[in-house]
């Protein structure tokens, strides 16, 4: 009915270059004109480069020579035989395995606490969010300064009668400290995500559970957690994809040291490409990373299917 009305009225406005267009045509012209450039853009800057990367990964490609011969999977096998690369895969998985639950726990905890209080909510929310809008590089240097051998943290530990720690100089501790820095920066965002989720839980579920005699802890486990499931899945998957690509913080805080204990896949890619100029190997490493991310995203779709409904 509306469509009919539109067709019948004001034909003048639907002229293009003097040619009168039907309503439907004008609509399609508009839609495709608007979408044309963005689509081309995405194809050119997202899709094409991936194919290009696949191409580079199966060639011996360094920036200095003209020849870029096809070498099949040689780059890939070389990578897997490289001890340092294998270590960076393991490290990267540690980043994910520790970082994702870590930031989830902290974000959820803060969100729960905030949900629990009535006053100053806005103030707390603002303060907790500040680290998220700051530059990761700058933040990394600040933490590096705090964690120095005679930096603030060690001096405070000494003052408390405890042993000063090696922190970023220790092959065992360093990676966890980098992860801690990343978690610290993400608290605000995680908190916001979970706050939004918490606010979506209808009060009547809590009331019903309370009437049934459930205390706070059981209410949390059996009402809050299941209903937060989609939010948790969202946080986990986005977080995992993000941790898989850790780069800036590692570069600033430790550059992969000590003894490659903090090295990540992307850091290795960066070294291969821009310090050793081995583009082929670097591209191969990004392909491996891509496969890991793809696997994770598909896992998300599977997980979300198992939605919990009450």
């Amino acid at each position, binding site marked *: 009915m509306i469509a009919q*009305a539109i067709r019948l009225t004001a034909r003048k406005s639907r002229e293009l270059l003097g040619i009168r267009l039907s309503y439907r045509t004008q609509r399609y012209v508009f839609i495709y004109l608007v979408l044309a450039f963005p689509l081309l853009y995405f194809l050119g800057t997202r899709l094409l480069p991936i194919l290009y990367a696949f191409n580079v990964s199966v060639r011996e490609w360094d920036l200095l020579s003209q020849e870029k011969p096809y070498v099949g999977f040689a780059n890939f096998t070389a990578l897997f035989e490289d001890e340092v690369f294998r270590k960076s895969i393991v490290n990267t998985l540690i980043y994910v395995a520790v970082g994702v639950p870590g930031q989830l726990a902290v974000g959820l905890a803060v969100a729960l*606490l905030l949900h*629990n209080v009535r006053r100053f909510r806005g103030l707390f*929310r603002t303060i907790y969010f500040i680290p998220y809008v700051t530059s990761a590089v700058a933040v990394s240097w*600040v933490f590096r300064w705090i964690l120095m051998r005679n930096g603030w943290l060690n001096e405070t530990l000494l003052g408390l009668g405890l042993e000063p720690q090696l922190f970023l100089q220790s092959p065992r501790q360093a990676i966890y400290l980098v992860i801690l820095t990343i978690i610290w920066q993400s608290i605000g965002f995680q908190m916001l995500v979970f706050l939004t989720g918490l606010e979506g839980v209808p009060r009547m579920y809590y009331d019903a559970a309370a009437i049934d005699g459930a205390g*706070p802890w059981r209410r949390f486990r059996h009402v809050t957690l299941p209903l937060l499931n989609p939010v948790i899945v969202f946080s986990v998957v986005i977080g995992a994809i993000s941790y898989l690509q850790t780069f800036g913080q590692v570069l600033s805080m430790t550059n992969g040291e000590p003894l490659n204990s903090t090295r990540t896949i992307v850091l290795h890619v960066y070294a291969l490409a821009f310090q050793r100029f081995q583009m082929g190997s670097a591209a191969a490493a990004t392909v491996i990373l891509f496969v890991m991310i793809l696997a994770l995203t598909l896992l998300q779709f599977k997980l979300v299917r198992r939605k919990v409904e009450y």
Partner: protein
Amino acid sequence: MSTQIAAPRVPARGSPSGSRLGSLASYVVLTLGTLVVIFPFLWMIATSFKLPQDLYSLRLIPATATFGNYAEIFEKAPFFSWIGNTVLLALITVTTVIVFDTMVGYVLAKFSFVGKSVIFLLIISTLMVPTEMLIIPWYLIATELGWSDTYWGVLFPGIITAFGIFLMRQFMESLPSELLDAARIDGLNEWGIMARIAIPLVKPAIAALTILTFISSWNQFTWPLIVLQTEERFTIPVGILYFSSELKDSASWILIMTGATVSILPLIALFLVFQKQIIRGIALSGMK
């Protein structure tokens, strides 16, 4: 307190998990948490005002404070250029993102057409392929096309963002279609409808996207690091890394912290001013 039989121990308003004591504990923990969150920034700022002899002092407020460090970093490194570059690039990015993401979001929200789901899928999939993966091909392509070490080289990956498209689409979906149809009946063409009716109605979303994009562009690190070669052309995060890595002795940490402060404070200030829009933008985008 009245004596009621089998009354649920959930208060009529406020927190779902009850007790007064619980609330108090929450306040305490939250306040302690803010200290943890704020302290690194305070320490960074404090250090930036220190004199070299106070390097290892643990006081939050230095015995003698000086602005000299700030003057010094502007002499030692092209911080003015870095700030200028960062701001310029951020402004350009914000403009292109707002223009394109809003239009695409509008079309995706308010129209149905052949190929819509395919296009939608394409845009979703770009979210799955994040920057760190694309830097190698981008670098190779950019170098070949002569974009290396240029503003355009830094800009081109960020002109249109899938995130922004989603944000605008979410917001636009709640626009009443009847309004748009009424305009169509009145004879306004599609461009006019979008520009004069739809877009003014989504100003809050545009504000949110503007701020978020500005902040994100300012903090961009990996790609600018790779594409920029000349020191004067660096953006602030790249400059900070470069500046901090060059300094060798312990007293330089004061300068490093000063540099860090210069790169962080503007954004904190921006955030404090626009926090409502920023938080709303993120909350909006979280609803998938």
